[in-house]
Every structure is written in structure tokens, then in C-alpha cells.
């Protein structure tokens, strides 16, 4: 086991898959000569050349649209969006085209494409560059939405995504590239669509993913000092959603909170809570609480931005509330 950063994990996954399969190529804004705006593809241009590391115009429709077309004829493009906020410029392709083409044409088309996109707040980038709109994308059948919270999962899930024959949105978090974690030696894959218990506990279930995992782990450490043992279920994939470990944990603890960075209304938490009520109502001992972003556009001001984002203490308070 080696301890590496999230950035290194993603970079390794990309490189291993490019070495394995010549049909895999990368396209996006500043992925090549620049080395990637988050330095994930640093060195790739020199290693693979402009044919496989394609710098694109700043034109998100062209990037995702062309990736879809290339995927339809058998290539395996990885299209990078500089941030997930720019996905809104390419919404037709992410929502209306990639997830629909197979179904609408009776199974004739496959779209083996990965869209890598960086989301999340906390870097004082202002309201249009700091969003966590994951739930929006998870709404649509036909798309798969993956968002890992550890380097191990990032690497294994990204490799699976690149090998998948379906269109996949792979969401990373802008503040997590330096997060370090153990990664297995040698090649490994993690299947898409499987939630995982990342921390075992007996008293309460915390359901979360991506940045929420980092925060929840810290909260769980604090709670443990007060003899409260939280079990943390990491969704890892938002669609298709694997409720198995969530329900298994909840049936044991009978109390849960959901932690996400996106807005609370119509969010991932709303879905998880509904599913628990629908599928495990008899096990509910307390109302389930959602910890999420305040219902405001994120401001530039650092203190205000942090006040709007979910924090470790919000998680601790929510856990104590459901344990009352």
C-alpha cells in the first residue's frame, strides 16, 4: 500500500488506462501544454503527444459534443471540464444527448465517454465557480454519476469509468487534490454503483460522499471522544444509487444524518432520506437530518463562504440531535 494524493491517484488512473488502451484519449481546456488547470495531466502532453492529449477551444458544447461523437464510433474519450460550473454551458450534451442516445435509437449507440469535472466551494471563487450541483446530474436516467471521497476510490472508480461503455460524469472536488490516502499496489478496479461503509460504528449512520466524507470522518473522530460511534456510508456513485449498505447500517443504528456539500433543497440528502423512509420506515427511531449548504449563492468573502458551506461542527450537532 502506498500513500498518495487524490491528484496522483487520478493521474495514475488516467495514465494506466491510456497505456492499456490506445482508444483512450483526453480532450479539454488546457489539458495539454498547460498540464491541466489542477495539474492532474501534468506531463501527459510530453508523454502522449497532441494526438492523444487534445487542447480544445473554450467551447464546452464542442468538447462534450465531439467526445460523444467520437465515443459513438468506438473511441474512448475522456472529456475534461475545467470546472463543473462550465457543465451548464454543455447541458444539452450532458443531459439531452449522452444519456438518451442509446435508448432513443433502440440500443444502436454506445457512448463510452467519461466527463471529468471539478466541483465544490471553499476556494473563494464566487457564486458561479463554486457550485456542487451533483444532484442535478444524478436526476437523469442514462447518465452515471460518480464522485469519490478517497484516493483509493478515485483511482479504482476512474479506471472502471474509462472501461465502461456508458457515459459517466466523474466529479472531483477542488479542495481535495492534496488529500492523501492509502492505495493498493498494482492494478485494481472498483465497480461503479457500490456504496461502501468507510467507518464502522454502532450509534448513528452518516450517509455522505466526496467532500462530505472528509468532513464526516473528522466529525466521527470528535464524536468518538464522547463515546458516540458513527458509522459512515460513502455513496461513491450517485447514479445508479446503491442503497444496500445505507439500509444495512440504518437497520442497525436506527438513526441517520445525510451530509452533502450541495444545497439541501431537492438534493442528494432528500433522495437518501426518502429512500430510507420508503424502504426502512419500521426502523426509524428519530427524524433524519440533512446537513447541507445554506440556500444562498456562495459569496466571495471567506468567512461568509465558510458559513454557507457545511462544517464539521454542523455534522456533530446534527448527530447529537438525532441521538436525543
Amino acid at each position, binding site marked *: 500500500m502506498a500513500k498518495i494524493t487524490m491528484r496522483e491517484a487520478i493521474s495514475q488512473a488516467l495514465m494506466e488506462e491510456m497505456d492499456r488502451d490506445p482508444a483512450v*484519449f483526453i480532450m479539454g481546456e488546457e489539458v495539454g501544454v498547460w498540464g491541466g488547470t489542477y495539474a492532474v495531466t501534468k506531463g501527459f502532453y510530453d508523454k502522449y503527444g497532441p*494526438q492523444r492529449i*487534445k487542447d*480544445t*477551444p473554450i*467551447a464546452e*458544447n*464542442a468538447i*462534450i*459534443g*465531439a*467526445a*460523444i*461523437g*467520437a*465515443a*459513438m*464510433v*468506438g*473511441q474512448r474519450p475522456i472529456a475534461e471540464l475545467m470546472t463543473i460550473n462550465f457543465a451548464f454551458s454543455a447541458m*444539452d*450534451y450532458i443531459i*439531452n*444527448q449522452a444519456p438518451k*442516445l*442509446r*435508448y*432513443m*435509437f*433502440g*440500443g*444502436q*449507440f*454506445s457512448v*463510452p465517454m467519461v466527463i471529468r469535472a471539478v466541483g465544490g466551494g471553499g476556494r473563494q471563487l464566487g457564486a458561479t465557480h463554486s457550485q456542487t450541483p451533483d444532484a442535478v446530474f444524478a436526476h437523469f*436516467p*442514462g447518465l*452515471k454519476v460518480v464522485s469519490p471521497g478517497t484516493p483509493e476510490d478515485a483511482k479504482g472508480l476512474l479506471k472502471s469509468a474509462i472501461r*465502461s*461503455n*456508458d457515459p459517466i460524469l466523474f466529479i472531483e472536488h477542488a479542495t481535495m487534490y492534496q488529500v492523501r490516502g492509502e492505495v493498493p499496489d498494482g492494478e485494481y478496479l472498483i465497480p461503479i454503483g457500490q456504496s461502501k461503509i468507510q467507518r464502522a460504528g454502532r450509534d448513528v449512520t452518516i450517509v455522505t460522499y466526496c467532500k462530505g466524507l472528509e468532513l464526516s470522518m473528522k466529525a466521527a473522530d470528535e464524536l468518538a471522544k464522547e463515546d458516540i460511534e458513527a458509522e459512515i456510508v460513502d455513496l461513491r456513485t450517485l447514479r445508479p444509487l446503491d442503497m444496500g449498505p445505507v439500509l444495512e447500517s440504518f437497520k442497525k443504528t436506527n438513526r441517520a444524518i445525510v451530509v452533502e456539500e450541495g444545497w439541501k433543497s431537492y438534493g442528494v440528502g432528500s433522495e437518501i432520506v426518502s429512500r430510507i423512509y420508503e424502504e426502512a420506515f419500521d426502523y426509524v427511531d428519530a427524524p433524519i437530518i440533512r446537513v447541507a449548504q445554506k440556500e444562498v449563492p456562495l459569496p466571495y468573502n471567506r468567512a461568509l463562504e465558510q458559513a454557507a458551506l457545511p462544517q464539521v461542527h454542523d455534522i456533530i450537532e446534527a448527530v447529537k440531535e438525532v441521538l436525543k
Partner: protein
Amino acid sequence: MKKEQQLDLYHQMVLIRRVEERGAELYQQGKIGGFMHLYIGQEAVSTGLIAAREPRDRIITAYRDHGVALNCGISANEVMAELLGKETGTSKGKGGSMHMADTSKNMWGGHAIVGGHLPIASGLALGDQYAGNDNVTICMFGDGATNIGYFHEALNLAKTWGLRVLWVCENNQYGMGTAVERASAVTEIRQKAEGYGMKNSQVDGMDVMKVYEAAKEAMDYVRKEGQPYLLEIDTYRFRGHSMGDPERYRKQEEVKKWQENDPIGIFRKQLIEKKATTAKALDDIDAGVDNEVNKAVEFAEASPELTVEDLYTDIYAE
């Protein structure tokens, strides 16, 4: 062009017309649902264009796609079954009028978001470029699609990267009910290619042989030079935009004037004047088409309905 091929083109044009006339009847009877956009009047465009391609060249088009489907060799049976939403349809009844495809015939679909398929066309060509072949992607769209951002992003990418796309603008004078001059800064659509340094030309879309010659030349350029090309084909739809069109935006005199230039009538006259064939032989083709279309309707109506299980198939590959 050999006589047999010319007669084949005539057959294709008449087939498109008759399939759509029957389609319109079935629509009125409530047997076809959704939106249906007829190609009647524009048959020479796709017929001449697709005759000029090699089988390995890809076609992708907009929602007015019945003609393109038939020209690509999708049978009248499969087109009619798709219109009726049957499992035997070319898109298994899940696409309908606007979404017909058959990848085995290199027909990459009718696409119904205006302009949305243009970046995808760049991508098909990108896939071929990446594979190292010189296939041409032929992307058809209406005049209305040249005013939306997709068009400009797609053309810019194609020229910047040297993608083999033949962009074909079917200028039928109206984007839905809005005349070209009311929606586009330039009325000669081909001029838009100039901004991207892209070679372009314009041709009369009511004459199938002229379309064929222009398309052939443009495709040769795209293949040899490894560069995109924009071909504007001027045409006119004789019917409304879709089945529910009150046609308040154009005068009947204008429609009548264009109908005097019926592409099937023009080609028929040419074939007889050139002594390529006789009126009798063409009448026989017409009769054969009537029979073909009758059989297609019978086939479509007799085909089994989709079941609720089919609702959940073909969402994901895995």
C-alpha cells in the same frame, strides 16, 4: 451517372414522397403520434447528396429525417414501423419520426435538438481522424440551425482540427415559421463558413443531379484535403413545418411557385428528355412504389406492440 443509378434515384425520391403521403394519412387517423416533419419538396437534397457518398461515409441529420433514412437504405417497412412505434421500427419504436438511425447503413440518426447534432458530427469525424481513416461525415441541418451556438462551435472545431465533415445546410427558407432574413444576419448561409476560413458553395436543391455533382465535388475535397466544407443547398418544403402548422407565415402563391419546381417533376422531365428512359418505365416505378408503401403499412400495422418490459431496455450498455 449510369442509367440504372439515375432510375434508382428517381425511385428513392418517389418512395420518400409516397411514404410521407401515407404517413400524413396515418397521422390524421391518430396512428402516428408526436411531431412529424415531412420532407416533401426537399427529396432531391438528401437523394442527390447521399448518392454521392461512399458506404463508409457517415450521415447524421436533423429531425426531418424520413428521406435521409430511406436514401441510406433503411427499408420503407422499418421507417413505417418506427412511425407507428413498433418494435420492428428502425429505432425499435423508441425514437419515432424524429429519431431514425441504422448504424449498419452508416445513418447516425435524426436529431431533434436544433443544431445539437453538429458538435456530435465533429465528434464522429474526430473518431475517424483518431482511427486514421479518411471517412467523411456528412452532417445535414436546416437554415435555422446556423443561428445557434452549436453551429459555430462545431464549425470552428472542425476547421481548427482538420476534421472531415461535409456540412450541408438545407436552406428551405424558414426556420419553423420564421423566414431566414428575419432570423439570420446573412441570408446567404454559405457566407457563415467564410468566418472560419472554410471552403463553401451553394447549389439548387430542386435538381437532384446538380445536388449530386456538387456533393461529389465537395466530398472529394473533404476527403483529399482533410478539411471541412460547407455546402448550402437551397430548397423548399411544400408542406407545413410539422403536421400542426397553420402556415400563417407564408403565402399560398409562394408555395405554388415553388411547387412548379417539384424536384420529382424536374427529374422526371430530365430523364425523358435525355432519353434515359420512357414515361411508361417511370410510371412502372411509381406503381412499384405504391405497392412497396402498401406493404410497408401492412407490415407496420401487423408488427407487435412494445411491452412494458421494453420500457427498461437499452438505457445502459452495462
